[in-house]
């Protein structure tokens, strides 16, 4: 359906974003493009419908060369929907008008036909009751779902998603991903630039890992996430996300700590039970550690590849060992809860420039 060969894009300031991109997209595929920031993922996507003009190479869509002056680009774009990071709903129109303007003005549908289809689409994205609302009255997640519906109103053959959840609050990400997931199930051809690794893994038929201006490695989700062949892919896939918090005294802000942890969990789509266990583990561990003996650094770590969560504490050596010296535990109950939550616990002393510190690690058991 789309054949990209030797695609190049250099900006007028000399920045070379795409060096040599080659890719083929077949009908019915769901392709996720992942990779570090600034490697041209969005630029590549925007080249596909000529929002950015490539500096070289060719893009052939259904046998038509996109760069040829004979090609009717606006017409091709009608079959190629795009969902933006910032939604870009038409601010001066109601939701209904947003969904009808394309079909009426471009596809020549009657207003009535267009409205009928719009209502179907609104029902599909779960926002039928918002038909009369203005875009400014909607939340980010709702706006993005409307944007997807607007795309669908043009009956496209493929939809390009440009980081559809990056501008959203963590709480609203899942509603948008839910809609995209259901589109995938219906067999819609899609290309999705995303940072949501787990989503990419679940929904895609193929993954493009982009780095250094090229499609560095491509394969099925399993190939890319389980057995990446190349070094940079491996580093990217195995990178660990973390959330750190320093406790300076027993009067630390527990609510701030908890809120930060919850936000972290939501960003990486840890399930509700996992979130609950993280919260419980943190509370109980902090019961075991005396906080008046010096600074305690706390880190919540998440490995996207292994999907493992662990809690780490870095403490002054003066504190009596948490794990080994069980007899001195002031709270037997806390200890048993912690043991119940964790699959592994380690404790090591490490040397730092300012002196040795104890690192204690609790690995959360998988549910």
């Amino acid at each position, binding site marked *: 359906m789309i054949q990209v060969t030797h695609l190049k894009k250099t900006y007028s300031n000399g920045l070379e974003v795409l060096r040599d991109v080659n890719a083929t997209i077949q009908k019915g595929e769901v392709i996720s493009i992942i990779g570090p920031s600034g490697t041209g993922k969005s630029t590549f996507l925007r080249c596909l419908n000529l929002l950015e003009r490539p500096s070289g190479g060719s893009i052939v869509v259904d046998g038509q060369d996109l760069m040829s002056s004979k090609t009717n680009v606006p017409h091709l774009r009608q079959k190629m929907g795009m969902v933006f990071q910032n939604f870009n709903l038409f*601010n001066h129109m109601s939701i209904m008008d947003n969904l009808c303007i394309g079909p009426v003005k471009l596809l020549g549908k009657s207003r009535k036909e267009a409205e009928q289809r719009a209502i179907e689409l609104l029902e599909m994205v779960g926002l039928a009751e918002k038909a009369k609302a203005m875009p400014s009255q909607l939340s980010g997640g709702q706006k993005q779902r409307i944007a997807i519906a607007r795309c669908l109103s043009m009956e496209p053959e493929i939809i390009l998603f440009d980081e559809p959840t990056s501008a959203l609050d963590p709480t609203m990400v899942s509603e948008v991903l839910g809609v995209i997931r259901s589109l995938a199930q219906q067999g819609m051809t899609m290309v999705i630039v995303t940072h949501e690794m787990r989503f990419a893994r679940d929904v895609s038929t193929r993954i493009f890992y982009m780095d250094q201006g090229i499609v560095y490695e491509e394969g099925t989700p399993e190939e890319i996430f389980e057995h990446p062949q190349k070094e940079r892919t491996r580093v990217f896939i195995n990178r660990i996300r973390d959330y750190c918090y320093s406790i300076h005294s027993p009067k630390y802000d527990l609510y701030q700590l908890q809120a930060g942890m919850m936000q972290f969990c939501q960003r990486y789509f840890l399930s509700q039970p996992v979130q609950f266990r993280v919260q419980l583990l943190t509370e109980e561990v902090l019961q075991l550690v005396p906080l008046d003996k010096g600074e305690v650094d706390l880190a919540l770590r998440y490995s996207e590849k292994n999907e493992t969560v662990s809690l780490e504490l870095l403490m002054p050596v003066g504190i009596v060992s948490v794990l080994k010296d069980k007899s001195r535990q002031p709270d037997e109950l806390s200890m048993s809860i912690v043991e119940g939550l964790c699959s592994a616990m380690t404790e090591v002393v490490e040397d730092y420039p300012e002196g040795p510190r104890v690192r204690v690690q609790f690995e959360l058991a998988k549910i």
Partner: protein
Amino acid sequence: MKGITKPFVCLLLCMLAACGAKQEAEQLPVYRTLDDLNGRKVAALTGCFQEAIIEKEYPEVEVLRIDNAADVVQALATKRCEAVVLDDYIFLYHSQTVKGLDYLEKPLVTATMGFCFGKNKNVELRLKFNDFLAKIKADGTYDEIYDRWMYHANEAEMPDIPLPQDAEPIRIATCSTSPPLDFIRNGKLVGFDIELATRFAQYVGRPIEWSDMNFASVIPALISGKHDMIVAAVNITPARAEAIDFSDPYFECGSLIGIRAENSAKQAAETNVGGKGILQGVKDSFYLNVIEEDRYLMIWNGLKLTALISLLAALLGTLLGAIVCWMRMSRHASLRSVASLYISVMRGTPVLVLLMLMFYVVFAGTTIDAVTVSIITFGMNFAAYVSEMFRSSIESVDRGQAEAGVALGFTPVQTFFHIVMPQAFKQVLPVYKGELISLIKMTSIVGYIAVQDLTKVSDIIRSRTFDAFFPLLMVALLYFILAWIFASVLDFIGKKAR
């Protein structure tokens, strides 16, 4: 409207009361000769020959230059100057109406007046006029005209002088603010000069196309070729004779130094402070300035003209502004710089200067009338301002909106009209409204090129009724109402569009 009416009326009454208040008596100087006026303010008509004489011979006198004779007399009556220098017939005419004036016995100089023709142009017409003048002086017609306008100007009627309509008209520039030679009564040009010129037109068998303009503009208008002759009580001076050709003198006059009676050696002080009530005063003013001589017709026509010029200039300017805006935002550097240059030139030039340039230079050789020139000039000026408003409002629409439109399959042009423009329109409306209102007020200068708009009408009325206060206030109110109507229409369009 309702909220502001009350304070407005209060203000009006206070001002009327202040006008009627008696001046405090004080030791007043007595003027006997021009020498007594050294170091004092003396008013004269802008560009009149007496002005030059005073400047040369009495350098210590401070000359106040005013554009029309009625205002010169008013300046004296309202104590903004100590004396005035005017042609004797004009001063005597005005002092019939404005009480409490006197003049110094010794006239300054005598002068003659002539009709003016372009230098070495229309020689034939000029010679014909000289023949005509000699003829009517011989057969007594001249004396008849003289008697009518010099001694009975207030009740004189213009005789009916039929002119052929099919011949090429003589284009005559005049200035209707110098009664009894040239003035407007019952909405028609009348006076000594006017009758003389009309009779002349009958003599040569051609109709007349009158242009009523400021005195300061008549000579430039003639030189630019817009007119064939000037009939506007122009004194014959050597300086003028270098630029234009004069006919034989058709009128002789002296000059007078006018003063207030209270400063007169004759002490024939007879002041005109009436004990009228305020309401009666307003009523009288209204009658005098609006009803008498059907002046409301003239006011109505002036109002229509102001509205017409404002409306068409706004339409033209909006269209032109859109084009300039498009050029300014173009990808081509050359179009962009042309647009920038246009905007900075238009914004950097006083619109009055631009108006005069357009009328006397750019369109000098054409037959385009002054109203059209005004519309074009104000349209051009308006375009420069609104184009920048358009640009900033278009730029204020998020780029993502246009991208979304294009991505949906609209062409860039469709995207602009369906997506960007409606959003920019909402942004630009409030500032556009302000600019439109300022355009309406700006058109008040079209009198300079002989368009009889609302402001010019008030000048004409003031020159006849010697009431500065009422006509000006009335015109201010009419401008306010006009601006309010325009703004309301725009608000209505804005609401409709939403």
